[in-house]
C-alpha cells in the first residue's frame, strides 16, 4: 500500500515538474509548481519527517508560491502566453539536460548504497529544537545564527529594492 502511494507521489512529482517548465500560461506554471511542492511534502511525511513536511507546506507552498503568484499578477496579463525559445535552442537545452541526467543516473546506478536500519533516532520537534540550539557535536547553532542574519539582510534588501523612490 505504502509502495503504491509512494510511486503515485513520484509520478505526480515528475509529471507536474515537467508541466511547470513546459506550460505556456505562467499562472498555470505556478499552480503546477505548487502541486510539485505538495507532493514532495507528502514524500517527507512518508519518511516520518513531519516537521520538515510542515515547514515545506508553510514556507514553500504557502509563502513562496503565493509570492510568485502575486508577482505574476502584478507583471503580466493573465492570458498572455509565454514566449517560446527557438526550436534549436530548446533542443540544445533538452540535450544538455538529458546528457547530465544520463551521466548522473549512470553514476548512481553503479554506486552501492547500503541502507542502515538499526539505531534510528526519533526526529520530533523537541530533538530538532535541541539540535538547532546546541553547540558541539550535532549542534547547529552557527548555521542557525548565520541564516537568521541572512533572513534579516534579505528582508531589508527586499524592502530597499522594491520601495518607491
Amino acid at each position, binding site marked *: 500500500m505504502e*509502495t503504491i502511494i*509512494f510511486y503515485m507521489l*513520484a509520478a505526480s*512529482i*515528475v509529471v507536474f*515538474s515537467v508541466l*511547470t*517548465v513546459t506550460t505556456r500560461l*505562467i499562472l498555470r*506554471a505556478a499552480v503546477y*509548481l505548487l502541486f*510539485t*511542492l505538495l507532493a*514532495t511534502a507528502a*514524500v517527507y511525511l512518508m*519518511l516520518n*519527517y513531519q516537521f*520538515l513536511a510542515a*515547514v*515545506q507546506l508553510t*514556507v514553500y507552498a504557502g*509563502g*513562496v508560491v503565493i509570492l*510568485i503568484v502575486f508577482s505574476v499578477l*502584478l*507583471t*503580466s496579463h493573465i492570458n498572455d502566453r*509565454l*514566449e*517560446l*525559445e527557438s526550436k534549436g*535552442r530548446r533542443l*540544445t*537545452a533538452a540535450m*544538455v*539536460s538529458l546528457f*547530465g*541526467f544520463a551521466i*548522473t*543516473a549512470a553514476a*548512481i546506478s553503479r554506486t552501492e*548504497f*547500503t*541502507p*542502515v*536500519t538499526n539505531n*534510528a*533516532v526519533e526526529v520530533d520537534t523537541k*530533538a*530538532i529544537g535541541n*539540535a538547532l540550539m546546541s553547540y558541539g557535536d*550535532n549542534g*547547529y547553532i552557527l548555521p542557525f545564527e548565520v541564516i537568521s542574519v541572512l533572513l534579516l539582510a*534579505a*528582508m531589508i*534588501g*527586499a*524592502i530597499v*529594492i*522594491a520601495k518607491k523612490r
Partner: protein
Amino acid sequence: MIAEIPVEHYSYIALFVFFVGLYGFFTRKNMIAMLMSIELILNAINLQFVAFNKYLFPDLMEGMIFSLFIIGVAAAEAAVAIAIIINVYRRLKTINVEEVNSMKY
C-alpha cells in the same frame, strides 16, 4: 523509511526534477518562470538530502536540518528576486531577460 523502495529511486526522482529545472532555466525567457525553475532545483536537492539521511544515516539528522536551512535560503532568495523583478518591471515595463540589458553596454 519504506523497506520495499530502494534509495536509488528517490535519487532518480530528485535527479529528474533537477534537470527538468535546469531545462526550464535554459529555455524560459520570463524572469518569474526562471525563478520557478530555480525553486524546482532547490526542491530536488532537498528531496535528495532527506532520502539519503533517512536511508543511509538514520542515526543522524544532518540531511533534514540542512533541508530546513535550504528552504529558508530559498525563501530569502525568492523574496529578493521578486523585489528585483518588480523594480525592473517598474523601470523597463518588461521582465523578459533578453530585453533587460540596459546595464550591459
